[in-house]
């Protein structure tokens, strides 16, 4: 394919063939971690390594957001001392990382997934339950 599909074009012209859901993996507790198992429905569309790399990066980003380090403790203690009013004024560390994640997903979609007729949905739009991968029909890719 010579041209790169914009996401908007994809959505307006393509028909959704299937949706694949990557569920959460709770083996390490309640931290946000998605299963890295490669779903069979995507075998024909994308390289296994690439997909697992995306999920692994997302997992690392979420781990960074929920990391219990000195920064989060300082933030927590400061908030407690100010009766949590500070949360109304400043952006928390978690929110900053969520913005980073949104940018990463957008970038991955533009570079890797949209050209292959796939679309990753940011897990925050699904309540951090699943990574939704929309598979568009093949016919929209051939112009």
């Amino acid at each position: 394919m010579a041209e790169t599909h914009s996401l908007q074009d994809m959505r307006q012209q393509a028909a959704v063939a299937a949706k694949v859901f990557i569920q959460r993996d709770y083996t390490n507790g309640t931290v946000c971690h998605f299963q890295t198992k490669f779903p069979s429905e995507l075998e024909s569309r994308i390289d296994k390594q690439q997909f697992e790399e995306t999920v692994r990066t997302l997992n690392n980003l979420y781990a960074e957001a929920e990391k219990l380090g000195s920064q989060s403790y300082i933030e927590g203690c400061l908030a407690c001392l100010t009766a949590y009013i500070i949360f109304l004024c400043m952006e928390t560390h978690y929110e900053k990382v969520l913005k980073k994640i949104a940018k990463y997903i957008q970038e991955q979609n533009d570079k890797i997934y949209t050209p292959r007729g796939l679309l990753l949905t940011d897990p925050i739009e699904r309540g951090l339950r699943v990574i939704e991968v929309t598979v568009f029909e093949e016919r929209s890719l051939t112009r």
Partner: protein
Amino acid sequence: MKNCEYQQIDPRALSVSPSSAQQNHTEKKVQRSRRKWEVFPGKNKFFCDGRVILARHSGVLPLTLGLIVVTCGLFFAFDCPFLVEHLTVFIPVIGGVLFLFVVISLLRTSFTDPGILPRATPDEAADIEKQIDTSGSSTYRPPPRTKEILINQQVVKLKYCFTCKMFRPPRTSHCSLCDNCVERFDHHCPWVGNCVGKRNYRFFYSFIISLSFLTSFIFGCVVTHITLRSQEGKSLIQAVQESPASVVELVICFFSIWSVLGLSGFHTYLVASNLTTNEDIKGSWSSKRCTEESGNPYSYNNIITNCCVTLCGPMPPSLIDRRGFLSVVEATPAAAAAAASASEMELPPFPAKNEANMCTRSTKSVLERMVHSFDSRGLCPPGAPKTTPLGVEVSSMATPSAGCSCQPGVAPCPPFSRSSKRRDSLHSSNPAFRLASPSPSLSRTTLILGDAHDIGFIPLP
């Protein structure tokens, strides 16, 4: 309740919609876009355009606030002048700081999203049901579903939530009062009028701790006041007669202290062992094994770490995106399967959010029903303003407060739908209204409706 009749409308007529509706559409296109809180399926109340969330049953929150304000008011008015004169000016200062802390923590606990999990989208629900069906028979309704997983080498059972259509993450519980699944669900507190969960537990804890200090402080000050008065050559009765407000404060504080201090102690224990009230009451991690004291897989086995994690850990974001805008897809003949577009759809005024009734049902049966029931629908009379084009994001299809009843031919919700018994009679016959409650955080839904694209509805002015 009035009968609603829907009439199938040719989508070509959509472009020649009534002038008033069109005028409304063009004039108010931007203003009428709805926010997600307006279509939230849980039993919650929203204020300040979605910034403030409260449970529908706000319980005795006004009483709690009233008691605190009245007691502190009496303290500042009647006891402080005497104590400032005889002791120190810091007494009202400390009292004031504690009072502010208590009120702010209370309001934060009440008005913060406790960690509500948005309900599964229809696609997600269908995917989960598909996975379950493959392992069991699909001819009859299977018993409540559970899934066992390993967390830190411990077996934990995840239950399937029939209302939210998903397997509940660990430590998540469904609050029947709020009709939401709440992460790290502790309990539903009537005193604060909200659930206590992952996001507002620290506010709740600081509220009860500061309230313990406040009540102890006021109690101590009032006792000191009366003692000092009676030492000035007067009897105790005389001292009390001079300051009757102090007796009121004494009584309130005396009875509050037992409960609040007890509660603070209990929650301090919970925080130190990284437990929730829910888990403690159910005895989820009580000593089942003789070798271990507790099998809590979430505990870090270190009191300080547990405290830090619960109280000073990172603040998770709200998952329900209350103030986001709903994006709906306009049903045009060109859009075969409803592909997501960012356009906003103008909808008639939404009645009070409390009227939002959603029928939760199996997505499969609903989609089948939709395909079969595209014929013989009449236009909804003006009293029932809820119509949307099919192929549109299934946000909230609330029935109007006038009560648009089902047509006789439409089947009620299946019996397993827990929260829908009362709502059956209020369902409209529009099949679009009957889809499983979608996630409020949805920005776009794609519904493969087959031949649904050539049927549309227009809102009546």
